[in-house]
């Protein structure tokens, strides 16, 4: 070390200078942003293509069905031969019913799980429970659908006598179960990000762990928690298999939870798996419904984005 007369070996400075002059490395350095740009462009173009198709077919739909009757109509009877009706409100209501039940099922459970994991669980417990949650998130939705239809619905029927075999309640609860891991996991991340000194400050004032969780950590992590709820809501709105299997195929313009419904997604499945002729209003209607669904989830994501920006905590 520190022997300036050492023979042969280049100094670190010389080695660095040599490496910086390396032509191949410089060329690669120039190519990297181009390649990355192209890859990014593919995904952007795909998205634009999908939205473009959606918009084009939706516009065609509105040449056959008046826009106004689509967004204000209370009857969705696309298969009626002599008097087809394309009022989307029943489908929207169906989607909102399921989403509402799902969210009120999932938020209390998901948040409790997040509080437990972040504020009470030992590292070991957390190491076991988190992967279990992730498994829950990885179950195919068709399995959830059968679970709703063959287990939850019969179970609920023993408590609620008037409950039909297809209804809004059972798929709502099961969609809720499906989004619990998302709320729990994202909220736990937000709560774990609250620095420990803040917790210690509260504990040192004689707060109990629960008071620390509810009155310090929860408010401090509020933006992340709200964002998780909104993203989970967005997921519930777009959920398809569970509602197709357990919700039924009867668009309903009412607020009951016990009768068969149809959601926007379930309608699209129904038409896609049937034999709607190309060029018929029914064919185009799935694009119009799909576009409406797209607007809903877009709105949700925008709200989530606003929340995280608006309530961002500075620790």
């Amino acid at each position, binding site marked *: 070390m520190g022997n300036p007369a050492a023979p042969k070996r280049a100094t670190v400075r010389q080695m660095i200078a040599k490496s910086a002059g390396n032509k191949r490395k410089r060329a690669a350095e120039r190519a990297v942003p181009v390649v990355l740009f192209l890859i990014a462009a593919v995904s952007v173009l795909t998205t634009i293509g999908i939205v473009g198709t959606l918009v084009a077919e939706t516009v065609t739909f509105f040449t056959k069905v008046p826009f106004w009757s689509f967004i204000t109509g209370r009857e969705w009877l696309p298969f009626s031969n002599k008097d087809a009706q394309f009022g989307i409100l029943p489908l929207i209501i169906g989607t909102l019913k399921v989403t509402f039940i799902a969210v009120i099922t999932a938020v209390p459970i998901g948040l409790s799980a997040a509080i437990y994991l972040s504020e009470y669980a030992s590292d070991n417990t957390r190491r076991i429970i988190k992967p279990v949650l992730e498994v829950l998130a990885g179950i195919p939705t068709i399995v959830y659908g059968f679970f709703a239809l063959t287990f939850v619905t019969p179970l609920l029927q023993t408590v609620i006598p008037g409950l039909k075999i297809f209804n809004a309640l059972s798929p709502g609860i099961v969609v809720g179960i499906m989004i619990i891991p998302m709320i729990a996991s994202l909220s736990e991340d937000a709560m774990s990000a609250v620095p420990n*000194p803040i917790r*210690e400050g509260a504990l040192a*004032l004689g707060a*109990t762990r629960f008071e620390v969780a509810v009155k310090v950590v929860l408010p401090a992590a509020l933006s992340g928690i709200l964002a998780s709820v909104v993203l989970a809501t967005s997921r519930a709105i777009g959920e398809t298999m569970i509602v197709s299997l357990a919700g039924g195929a009867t668009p309903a313009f009412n607020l009951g939870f016990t009768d068969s419904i149809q959601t926007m997604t379930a309608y699209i499945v129904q038409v896609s798996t049937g034999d709607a002729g190309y060029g018929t209003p029914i064919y185009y209607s799935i694009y119009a419904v799909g576009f409406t669904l797209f607007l809903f989830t877009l709105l949700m994501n925008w709200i989530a984005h606003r929340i995280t920006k608006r309530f961002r905590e500075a620790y």
Partner: protein
Amino acid sequence: MVQVMERTRERAGLKQTAAPAVPDVRPLVYDTKLLNLWYGNHHALKNIDLPIRENEVTAIIGPSGCGKSTYIKTLNRMVELVDDVRTSGEILYRSRNIFDRNYPVEELRTRVGMVFQKPNPFPKSIYDNVAYGPRIHGIRNRQILDEIVEKSLRGAAIWDEVKDRLNTNAYSLSGGQQQRICIARALAIEPDVILMDEPTSALDPISTLKVEELVQELREDYSIVIVTHNMQQAARISDRTAFFLSGEVVEFDETDKMFSNPEHKRTEDYISGRFG
């Protein structure tokens, strides 16, 4: 050594008469008896015996890693937040052993306030920070809370700086202001003892001076234990000083005596800056 003391006090702008007479008769707040503490296998505190008396400032000095923070965190059992901590011995707070199995630890922490090395306000408004303690202990009446907040902020010598913006986030304040908010937060539940772990080490000199003056005033109403690695600070503001080294108390005495005429060679070496 005496000259060192005088110079220190002059530099702080304090008159030499500010050195308080320390009668030994003041009642005990804390009495630590043969305390040992281990982090896993690491023996961090060894046979500590230390009395802490009412309305005094007790300073804890020593090189870093000697166990100052560990000791002060043991006094309100915050040290238990670390996994794998074991203790033996006793700490009597107001004559009761805080390690008793059924000791109400939240009650202990309500009676014993703590100010941390780095200011750690809650990400809430200034008002809500100070009102947090009273609120969790059941005080809801807005008028009473208003009074507590004002009194505590005045007590922490920061009322005039923040009275017009009580609803702004505490994080918008400077570090020194944040630290005084944390002191106000501790004062708001009218504790018996205030523990301070290097409360000025993250602060600029002017904020440091403000906090030091504040400690002098708080002595009237509270018993204070303050950790500092700054010997001049200990000399300026404390009545008694404990010198920690490698987890042991090497010397514990009246501050004036300790800084002018230390009993042990290692104490003298440390306070004269020969190591540490």
